[in-house]
Structure formats: C-alpha cells, structure tokens
C-alpha cells in the first residue's frame, strides 16, 4: 500500500486540495465584493466591510456581501448535492437539474409567490421549494429502483424535469397578475442580484441541514461502490441512505432555488473537476466538490456583473450555457462506458 493512499477520511493530499480551494473561494469572494457598477478600490471595500460606514458601507455590506454569501452557500450546496446523487447512483452524470429538482423547486416556490400566498422573503417560499424537490427526487429514486440503471434514471429525470417545466408554465399561465408572472419568469432564470440578508436568513438553516444530512451519508456512498447488495452486506442501510439523499438534496436545492431561481449544472461540473484528485472516492469527493461549487458559482456571479450591457445576464443562464457543453463533453468522453452500460 502506498503511504499516501488513504484508507478512509482525509489524508494530506486531500487537506492540501481543500485548503487550496478555500483560498480560491476566499479570493473570489473578495473579488465579488469589488465588482459592481460603483467603482470602489480594494482598500475602500475592505474599510467599508470593517466599519460599514457611508455609501461604500451600504454598497459593500448590504448589496454585495449578501449576494457573495449566497453565491458561496448555494454553490457549495449544489456541488454537494451533485456529489451525493452521483455517489448514491454510482453515476458521474447525476445532477439535480437533470432529475428535475430545480424545476420542481421553482414550481413549488412559484406557486406560493404567484398566488400571493406569501411574500418573497417568507419561509413559505423555501418550504414550497423543498416540497417540490422532495417530490421530484423521491419519485426519481422510486422509479429508478435498486438497480439504478443509467437509462431508467436519465429517462425518469427527463420526464420529471419536463413535468416541472409544465407545472411552471401552468402557474405562469394562471397567474392572477401579469406583473407577477413576469417577475416569476425573470426569477426563474436564476440570479443573485438584489438579494438581502433576509434571503440569506431564510435559506441558511435549510442549507446547513442539507450539508449535515448529506455529509453523514458519505461513508455509505463509498460502500456503494461495490453495488447495493455488497454495501448492505457491509452494514449500510440502503433505504436510510436513499431517504437521506432525498431529504438532503431537497433541503439544499429546494431552499437554494427559492431564493436564487433555477441554477443548474454546478452539481455536475464541481464533483467532476475534483474527482481524480481524490482517487474517485465518492466520500472524499464531497468536501472538495462543495468548495468547487462555491468557487464556480461565485465566479459565475462575478462574470454576469462584468459583461457590459443594459441588463445583467442572469446567473442561471450562464451556468447552463457553460454546464450543458460540459455535460455534452462528459457524455462524449464517457460514451464507450455509457454504451456498455445498457448491457445487463
């Protein structure tokens, strides 16, 4: 056995990787505080962050900081959710958006907003998003069953995503007020613009809950490398693991979508970027996937502010524009494996 080959837990290589990713996230966070229509020097931003005085204080603390914090928290949640779904299904192409999770969350949240059941910063919105996601991921795992074949999983995900889209269309269609419908349509594109501390507060409890639930199942994902029967024979409770993933992904994605709209493909890209660095271990990939997700979404949110134009490009549009070609490239590079997967 090579000395730096860890058996479980973190080894020095993992620590280095995670430390580097933390530094990257911190650097991007600072960059995110610098970028915006008001030109502020790094020194001004630092001072404003510390004392919060004057106009720079308002800009940095009340406008840019909540947005940055949300990008980090939501990006980490998507990275972790993607890694968890991939671990459970033993499939590197698993991603919440491919299973209709953000669509279902958006449908739940849109329902609440469109019919004026609650204000946009009420706990009812993330709760509705969580309920929608739980329905989507729960149905997916129920349909995919124990064997979780790639074809069945992907087809069920496609159907669920389409259904989520149809539900959103119906809500927009029936929305009592065209302004509300328009607002929802824009919100669906995914953005962190003009988010406040209220938004941070209503999602943080759910996101932390999601991290705890998914983090606790990491060991089970490692055992699932050997398939469900072998994992069960090693003492892993497969049903509990599946339920934990449904609850964890629903809490995370449901709450995230409720404040940020539909953001997709971070969960696919983030684990893929770090998988080889952790020896393809589905448990060790989780923390670096979360950090990479945070870095990716923060970087994307900086990018949307840097592109010149009369309107800001929506964050969800950018992640999809980058994520979908990435997804296609993954399919292309793994197509031999995917073609083999249809065999029993």
């Amino acid at each position, binding site marked *: *056995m*090579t000395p730096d*080959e*860890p*058996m*479980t*837990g973190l080894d020095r290589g993992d620590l280095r990787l995670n430390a580097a990713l933390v530094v990257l996230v911190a650097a991007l966070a600072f960059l995110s505080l610098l970028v915006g229509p008001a030109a502020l020097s790094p020194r001004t931003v630092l001072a404003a962050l510390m004392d919060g005085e004057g106009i720079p204080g308002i800009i940095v603390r009340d406008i840019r900081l909540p947005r940055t914090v949300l990008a980090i928290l939501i990006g980490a949640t998507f990275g972790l959710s993607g890694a968890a779904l991939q671990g459970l299904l*033993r*499939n590197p192409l698993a991603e919440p958006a491919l299973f209709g999770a953000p669509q279902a969350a958006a449908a739940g949240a849109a329902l609440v907003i469109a019919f004026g059941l609650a204000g946009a910063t009420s706990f009812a919105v993330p709760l509705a998003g969580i309920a929608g996601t739980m329905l989507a991921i729960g149905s997916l795992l129920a349909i995919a069953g124990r064997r979780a074949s790639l074809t069945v999983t992907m087809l069920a995900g496609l159907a669920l995503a389409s259904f989520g889209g149809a539900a959103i269309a119906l809500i927009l269609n029936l929305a009592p007020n065209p302004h509300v419908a328009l607002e929802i349509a824009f919100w669906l594109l995914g953005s962190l613009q003009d988010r406040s501390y209220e938004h941070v507060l209503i999602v943080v409890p759910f996101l932390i809950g999601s991290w705890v639930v998914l983090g*606790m199942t990491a*060991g089970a994902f*490692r*055992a*699932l*490398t*050997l*398939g469900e*029967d*072998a994992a*069960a*024979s*090693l*003492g*892993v*409770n497969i049903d509990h693991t599946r339920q934990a993933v449904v609850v964890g992904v629903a809490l995370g994605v449901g709450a995230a979508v409720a404040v940020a709209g539909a953001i997709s493909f971070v969960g696919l890209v983030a684990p893929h970027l770090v998988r080889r660095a952790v*020896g*393809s*271990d*589905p448990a060790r990939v989780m923390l670096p996937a979360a950090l990479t997700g945070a870095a990716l979404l923060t970087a994307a949110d900086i990018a949307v502010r840097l592109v010149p134009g009369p309107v800001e490009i929506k964050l969800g549009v950018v992640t999809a524009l980058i994520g979908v070609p990435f997804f296609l490239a993954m399919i292309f590079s793994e197509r031999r494996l995917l073609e083999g997967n249809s065999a029993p």
Partner: protein
Amino acid sequence: MTAAAAPLLLRADAVTVQLGGAVVVDRASLTLRTGELVALVGPNGAGKTTLMRALAGLLLPASGNIEINGRQLETLGQRERARAIAYLPQGHVFHWPMHVAAVVTLGRHPHADPFSRTSPADRDAVTRALQATATEVFAGRRVTTLSGGERARVALARALATEAPMLFADEPTASLDPRHQLVVMDLLRRAVRAGGAVLAILHDLTLAARFADRVMVMDGGRIVADGRPEDALSPAQIAKVFGVDAINVDTGEGFIPIARHPL
C-alpha cells in the same frame, strides 16, 4: 477436529423465500460450521443466490428461521451482522475507478467508527487480505485498470478484509480462466483453514467436488442433497438435477464428476 464437533456458526430451518409472489426458496434447512468449505450447486434458477442473500440477511424470508451463533439473524444489528458474515456478490462490480487499497479497505466498514480514521487493526487486516490474495503489488492501481482475474482477487480481498467468521461467495470463479479458478478456490480453502467457514455458489461441479468439504445441491428452490461430494454429486444425482449424464472419475486424490456427453 471433525466437522460435526466444530462450532455451529449458522443454522437455517425451513427457510422459504418468496420473490414477487413466487416461492424461490422452499423450506431450505442447512448448517454451517467452522472449518467447512461448503459448495452450493444447482442449475440456473434453482434459488441459490436467493438462499444465500437470505442467509446473509439481505432479504427477509417469508417463513423459517435463521440463527447466527445461536442468535436470530433478524435480531442482529446491521453492523453486527456485517461483522459476522462477509458477502461477495456475483460479478465483482466496482462502480468508481478507486484504488485497490481503498476498495479492499471497504471490507473494514463494519468495524469502522464513521467519524474516525482507519485504525491500526483495520490497516493490518487490509494488509493481510492483500497479501493473502497476492494483490498488494497493485494496491496503488485503479480497480478499473485490472484484468478479470485480478479484479476477482481484489473483490475477494475486500471480502476477506472483514475477517468475518463466515464468507458467502456467489460464483467467485465465474468468467475466470482455469488457473484463476484454482487460485480463487485455493484462497477460499485457506480462509477456511485460517478458522473460518465458507459457503460458495459454484457452477463447476468439478471444482465443487475437488475443493468442498460438503456439497449442497439445490433444485427448484429445495435443497435436494447435502453431504460429502461423492454422495451429493453421484452420477444419479447429477442426472436427476442437471439432466447431464456424468461419470465419477477417481483422480487418486479424490474423485471428480465429468460429463460424458452433452444432453
């Protein structure tokens, strides 16, 4: 020590398993003792895998009783059960291209504290399993880069690393070349000699006769024979269960059944 005097590890009484309403295992009764290598043979669809999964606690029988070390199987906790029985399913599947050492370490999962690093005892067990299967040379390689025979040995190393008193192996020699079939059977023999008990589903009756202390024959969900290889695999029994005309050939070190001609 004679087999009958060795400690009883497992006792199953009239175990019946239904899958989708159909009776797949029909009132199977058996025992497994320390120091025994028991081969479970039978035609395709006889219910061998289902019986083994039920004995391993992976599915719940419709009726009957299974005792592990004198305790009801269903009263054992999942980790407790996992420490008593190592199970090696068919196919030797590895879903991620993990390193061999990390895969073998999965066998220590039933012993591991989920919040701590691998203990020295775990490391020692993994090293022993790697050495026993001669897989330590590729401990740092990814499982997906290995040949079929190497993967089979790694899969077995994973099961051995648990160091459970019982090892259930479902077709451990399937799709291996003749040499690797012998290598794997030899490893199972050695696991038995080291103080364990092995129950192995085999399709090759010659291997079963050569390596097993006892052979159980399943047909249509029932155990129709259970005894010394030469009795359980008599030409009459083979003709009845497998529909194959066979003769028993004495090799000098025991006898082996050989099919005379197909059908």
